[in-house]
């Protein structure tokens, strides 16, 4: 059996105004991956391809060891998929939806569903059309979580949720990982959520994977250095420096491969390193996307 929950290899898909270009990514079992990208980056297209909803033009897609789209029915028994454009039936109750899903999936866990109703503060007898946006999102999540799928694929699961609801949802997602055979792929604009719960992070922009690796490496490698360059402004050229902005005698240098050795490189050139700052995932994301766009323009 494969230990990769998701493996995309060289996946391409061309639309009239957008192209997903040789996208590759891997998610190991038991891990959470955050898919981060600006609007129109290709996050939802990637998710639709791996769910078998649209065919790729080229490349290899495997989910839970099954080839997609040919074996998608098999794979989907063990996948829970929620996207923010899904709608439940407005004139049916939440309870009706729960019975419906339970009748299709033998893995439905009645006790867990009851627990989730309480934790999410949802009323089973309520009609879907009476649910708030946050309640609707939580209802969608409940319907997949109670199946205990091996893989959760969540397109923007926390968008539009208030802070309390977001907290409840993230707690439930973490709970999934008590079982280390289960994995989560989620896309989000909220880099704070991604930074907190992801093991792996994939940045995508304009149909390309900008970078995909484990979160700790991301956070460890990217730093901002405050450097006094003096009046002669003689900063040495360093390949790992992705951005320099100078104001007066001070320069702010952003690097994607920080090592203490970097201090010596600058100091040999007569500059003084005053401060080394860590960056948040959001700052890394923006710097990464901007520098990758500059490279692609060249």
């Amino acid at each position, binding site marked *: 059996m494969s230990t990769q929950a998701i493996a995309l290899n060289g996946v391409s898909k061309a639309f009239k105004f957008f192209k997903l270009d040789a996208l590759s990514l891997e998610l190991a079992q*038991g891990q959470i991956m955050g898919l981060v990208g600006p609007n129109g980056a290709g996050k939802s297209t990637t998710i639709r391809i791996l769910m078998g909803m649209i065919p790729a033009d080229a490349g290899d897609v495997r989910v839970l060891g099954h080839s997609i789209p040919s074996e998608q029915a098999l794979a989907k028994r063990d996948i829970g998929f929620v996207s923010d454009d899904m709608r439940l039936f407005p004139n049916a109750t939440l309870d009706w939806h729960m019975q419906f899903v339970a009748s299709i999936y033998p893995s439905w866990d009645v006790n867990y569903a009851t627990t989730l109703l309480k934790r999410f503060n949802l009323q089973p007898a309520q009609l879907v059309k009476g649910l708030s946006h946050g309640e609707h999102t939580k209802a969608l999540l409940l319907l997949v979580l109670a199946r205990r799928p091996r893989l959760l694929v969540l397109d923007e699961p926390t968008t539009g949720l208030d802070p309390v609801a977001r907290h409840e949802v993230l707690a439930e997602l973490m709970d999934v990982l008590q079982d280390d055979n289960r994995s989560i792929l989620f896309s989000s604009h909220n880099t*704070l959520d991604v930074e907190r719960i992801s093991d792996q992070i994939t940045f995508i922009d304009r149909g390309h994977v900008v970078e995909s690796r484990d979160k700790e490496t991301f956070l460890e490698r990217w730093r901002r250095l405050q450097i006094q360059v003096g009046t002669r402004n003689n900063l040495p050229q360093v390949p790992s420096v992705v951005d320099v902005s100078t104001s007066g005698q001070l320069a702010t240098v952003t690097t994607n491969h920080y090592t203490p050795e970097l201090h010596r490189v600058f100091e040999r050139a007569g500059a003084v390193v005053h*401060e080394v700052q860590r960056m948040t995932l959001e700052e890394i994301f923006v710097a990464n996307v901007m520098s990758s766009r500059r490279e692609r323009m060249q």
Partner: protein
Amino acid sequence: MHSGLTISQADPRPMYLQIKEQIRHRVALGDWPAGREIPSIRQLAIELRVSVITVKRAYLELEREGVIVTQHGKGSCVADGLDLSLDLQERELEEHLAAAVRIARLLGLSDEELAARLRQIEREKVKKKA
């Protein structure tokens, strides 16, 4: 077992470091005595709602520093060794002093001026007690 650890996203320190320092603190205070079992990586990740990889990193470094011991399949526990808490406090002091020196440099203070400030703080404490 509830660890009582907390994570702040407003804290400029990375999350793995927050976890590491809080565990070190509990060990230094003796709240977590030698031999005490500590939560598994996955348990703590779920409790704190942070990724497994973050907790793993904190545990690996604590292990390397000899604060905890991990036995495969058995989980982790606080390492034996009586001088541990003293050693940890020593290290904490070291870190604070290094930070003070760094800030003093930025402010352009000489070593003598920094030392004078330290003595002054000491004197004020004594006065308050009296």
